[in-house]
């Protein structure tokens, strides 16, 4: 049975800027299954946020979808209703999808909450509009939600304003708002980047437990691979507006095939990393103004082949769940090994796994 809930096909997005047209997304295919957590990983500017903004229909004014489709399969009891999000009228989308079926948690809870409204009124707004609840019903449900996300004394807190709460508490409120109308999909755009590690761990665990309780499908955007390891079922690695590798979380962490993924994994020291130098990806992400010839990653790729400068690599299949866009997987390519530091780490992780 096809349990896809969100399907993005061949999505391309451009932005008109004063210095020219920026091709931010250049053909992205993504599939989110019901109840699954999909993480999109990449550096800033890789297009991960733009992709989900297109799903929510909140691209900035100079952005334009040039091709592709986004299909949302909403479950209506037994039947499945297919919604073409890109061609829906804006009004219908806002009343039927945004906040109700697909909700989003943003990076910085201070800027995503309105400072002049109490958290109670921000929590109930969506429920009054989408679910047509009365004031009293909405209030009691808001208290329930605050309880659910682990805010002590919700009856008192509901009257508070955002500035009266700590960063972690604010993010809990934002999550409560997102969950208010019982959405099918929760999109989290770097929800813990602005928070401390100890708070981050608790927010991640909160999202996980809520996901299990409510059967949510979660689309996670992050650049922190530690976070990915904790929350994700499947991973898509993005670079320069394309998905360069995708697979289950185990495929990506134990058997990465794309040199960019190797770089990302090795550049982040884990607690065992020692030695004189960290592995780095040389250079900086490419300028997205104008056409990119060949593989966008070629200039930063130590393992680049000649063909990388001329022809863009297609997706090569590694296994049923795993594929990567690099010419290294072509049958005529030289057999290359991942960097030794990464191989050692994977060995270490395997030992750790066997021990536990």
């Amino acid at each position, binding site marked *: 049975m096809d349990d896809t809930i969100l399907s993005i096909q061949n999505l391309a997005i451009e932005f008109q800027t004063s210095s020219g047209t920026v091709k931010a997304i250049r053909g992205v295919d993504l599939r989110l299954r019901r109840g699954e957590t999909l993480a999109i990983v990449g550096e800033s500017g890789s297009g991960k946020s733009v992709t989900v903004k297109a799903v929510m229909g909140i691209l900035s004014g100079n952005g334009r979808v040039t091709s592709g489709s986004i299909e949302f399969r909403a479950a209506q009891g037994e039947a499945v209703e297919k919604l073409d999000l890109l061609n829906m009228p804006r009004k219908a989308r806002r009343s039927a999808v945004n906040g109700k079926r697909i909700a989003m948690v943003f990076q910085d809870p201070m800027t995503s909450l309105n400072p002049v409204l109490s958290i109670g009124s921000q929590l109930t707004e969506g429920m009054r509009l989408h679910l047509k609840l009365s004031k009293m019903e909405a209030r009691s449900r808001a208290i329930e939600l605050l309880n659910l996300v682990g805010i002590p004394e919700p009856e008192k807190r509901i009257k508070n304003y955002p500035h009266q709460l700590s960063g972690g508490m604010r993010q809990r409120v934002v999550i409560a708002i997102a969950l208010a109308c019982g959405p099918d999909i929760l999109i989290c755009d770097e929800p813990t980047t602005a928070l401390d590690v100890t708070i981050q*761990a*608790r927010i991640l665990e909160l999202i996980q437990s809520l996901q299990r309780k409510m059967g949510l499908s979660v689309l996670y955007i992050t650049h922190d*691979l530690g976070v990915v390891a904790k929350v994700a079922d499947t991973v898509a690695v993005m670079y320069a507006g394309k998905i360069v590798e995708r697979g289950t979380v*185990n495929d990506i962490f134990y058997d990465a095939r794309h040199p960019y993924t190797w770089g990302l994994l090795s550049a982040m020291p884990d607690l065992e990393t020692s030695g004189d130098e960290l592995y780095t*990806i*040389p250079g*900086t992400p490419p300028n997205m103004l104008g056409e990119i010839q060949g593989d966008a990653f070629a200039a930063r790729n130590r393992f680049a082949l000649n063909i990388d400068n001329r022809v863009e690599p297609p997706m090569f299949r590694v296994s049923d769940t795993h594929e990567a866009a690099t010419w290294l997987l072509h049958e005529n390519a030289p057999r290359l090994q991942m960097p030794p530091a990464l191989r050692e780490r994977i060995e270490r992780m395997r030992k750790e*796994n066997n021990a*536990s």
Partner: protein
Amino acid sequence: MNDKSILNAAGQPPLLEVENLRQYFRISRRQTIKAVDGVTFRIYPNETYGLVGESGSGKSTIGRSVIRLYEPTAGSITFRGRDVSGRLSADDEKMLHTRMQMIFQDPMSSLNPRKKVVDIVAQGLDIHRSYASRAERSEKVFAMLEKVGLSRDHANRYPHQFSGGQRQRIGIARALIQNPDLIIADEAISALDVSIQAQIVNLMRAIQKETHTSYLFIAHDLSMVKYLSDRIGVLHLGHLVETGSKEEIFKNPLHPYTKSLISAIPHPNPIVEKKRSAAIYDVRASGIDYEKGSLRHVEGTHFLLAADDEFKRWTKGA
């Protein structure tokens, strides 16, 4: 404490000694924030001391007090054998402002957008008149830019023409041009992308190897701190709750806050990470009063902030 005990393994006296530093901020007549409340640590030549803690724990305040962006409320700061905590003589001030430098978190807001890179990097030289001719000034700047991985063509550009990682390199060049003994890096890599972070960290290490400068590395990312630091201090609510070499802190964390901090780092290993949950630490619920504790010696360079019974309880298992 006798005099021998403060020398490091190489027999060197500390470069920076911070003794019982307090930094209070008066908000109103009734309210005073104790941002740093009695913190003691030392930094030796050619070493990296990492300060970690959550936001609001006072780690940035310590950096800023040490370099005298703030007036310390109490306590002593000794840098290169001279007291720099009270009123500074002109001589001490010059020494402090040249031998100690700072790299800031946000490379955009810490570089003047209206100045060219060459003038930003040379500003310290201009103030302290440490060159004989214009040509020498430019030569010094060019050499420094090359050292941090930029080229001399970059000297006549403005900060907005650079990427985040390059801007942070400019900040590092500005700090290095004074040939400092101590560089305070206040969240210097937090605003950068993962792949760029690694480049900057490698650069900082290479510079240390060459110039033997010391770093006070302030960060909240524990895995980076562990990678870069020789010794680590863990801060919580303005108190230094535990300090020691990175092995001591990571192999044998004793304070419950340190333990929760370490357990909160996500491991990039999905099979293990999925089963793990982080330890939760709540000061109020645990009944620990930092005011009552004192910094006690565990072993080697490992110290722990604890009251008598807490110390016994926490070190028992070790």
